């Protein structure tokens, strides 16, 4: 799995708002797309977003997603990879090697 031993880190360019059960990522920095207003997260997206804030590796996120949503490993891996890739493309997260952090 891509990024299995890497730790996704949120960038400080959005603020999470929860309004009437909806999770919104409101940009507070300039993004490439001038038409962008905000992002919305669904339940699973919000679940992963919260885990990203706890210094887990991508592999650990997969395990937690499997526990929470009772999905098989293959499916969870694929979805986490897809979601992290999307967040990375949108410049919402970066990655750190887990080993590097532990050595520090």
């Amino acid at each position, binding site marked *: 799995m891509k990024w299995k031993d890497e730790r996704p880190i949120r960038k400080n360019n959005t603020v999470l708002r929860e309004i009437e059960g909806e999770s919104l990522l409101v940009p507070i920095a300039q993004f490439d797309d001038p038409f962008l207003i905000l992002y919305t997260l*669904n*339940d699973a997206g919000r679940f992963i977003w919260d885990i990203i804030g706890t210094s887990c590796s991508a592999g650990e996120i997969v395990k937690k997603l499997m526990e929470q949503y009772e999905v098989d490993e293959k499916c969870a891996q694929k979805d986490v990879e897809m979601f992290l890739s999307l967040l990375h493309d*949108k410049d919402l997260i970066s990655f750190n090697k887990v080993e590097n952090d532990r050595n520090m």
Partner: protein
Amino acid sequence: MTETCNRYYSTRYFLSTRDRNKQSATHKVGIKAILFSLFINLTHCCNLDCSICLVKSDLSSRKKQELDTRTIKQILDEAASLGALNVGFSGGEPLLREDFEDVYVYAIKKGFLVSIYSNITLLTSSTLDLFQRYPPDRIQVSVYGLSREIYEKVTRVPGSFDSFMNNLAGLRERRIRLSLQFTLCSSNEKECEHFIHSFPKKDYELKNATIYLYKHMRSDARRNALIEQVMLPPAKMAYYVFKYQFSSRMGFLFSPSDRRKIRGQNKLFWRCLKDIETLSISPSGECCFCYEMPVPENRRQYKPGKLKEIVRVLLEEKKNAIMPDIECRDCPNLLYCEWCPLYAYVFMGKLAPIPYFCEVMKELNLLGVPMLTEEVIYAGKEKEQKEKV
């Protein structure tokens, strides 16, 4: 499968983007929060002295009448907890506030989509850089003219045109989303059409024109006289309204089904459609559901911790308020006319018809805008139904 599992599989889009190609930002997310957006007038004062505007340029006593930084932040906290997503900072000129940057950054970090309504002449390089770092959702820029001569004839402050142009360039360099708003009056009329047709605009910018000089300060005879001098004659106003559909209500002209939908609202006291979910707060903390000056019947003074209660009471009152028995109530032009309780108070000091608006509507009728009789409202309904089938 558990419910969570089903939900997980049924919505595979973990992240969705809301952008400006789809409807307005605000009617967007489909959230039904208690309070949708907030409009804070940070100050009554302005650095310019426009002949078309009621706002005071006397800065000496303003601080006593304005909310302090702490209170504004508290209002933002409360509004956020009620679910408000948008906040607009206006005035007067909001950049006059020494704490503007502090309040602005606070709102941004709170997760509001922030709009600013400004003449931009007071922007400094530090504010421009701040906007680049923390971009506002949009800055609505007042445009008074496209040449130094005309611009400063309106603003009556030498040097203001250069500041305006330099800062406009600075904002565009930083790719800040702008909404350019031309304020039409007799002094700058010649430049309005040029603005509409050929003034350059980026694809993510908006441009529009404000037509009515409704900011008519009843208590200031000198200011009133100035405003009256530069108001367009009714026939000309009707021409611009008709040609460019500048009026927010003119859309109804061209859509019979919209006319029918809104018809029942004729009798309502408040019939403004665009600001129904926006709570406006004056510089001194008076709250009302109107984006400009509060109308006496419908305002409450802000008290810390009480915003939710104020919103509840105001919404209830607004829902039930019936338009008083004045001539406008049964006017067949009411749907197109810009008359509203706010304008009535601003122009006339009471709930009454505004003769200038009546004249404009008569001219519009002469141009072919139909009065809204029953026949007109239901005209074309059969044809529409056939087309649907």
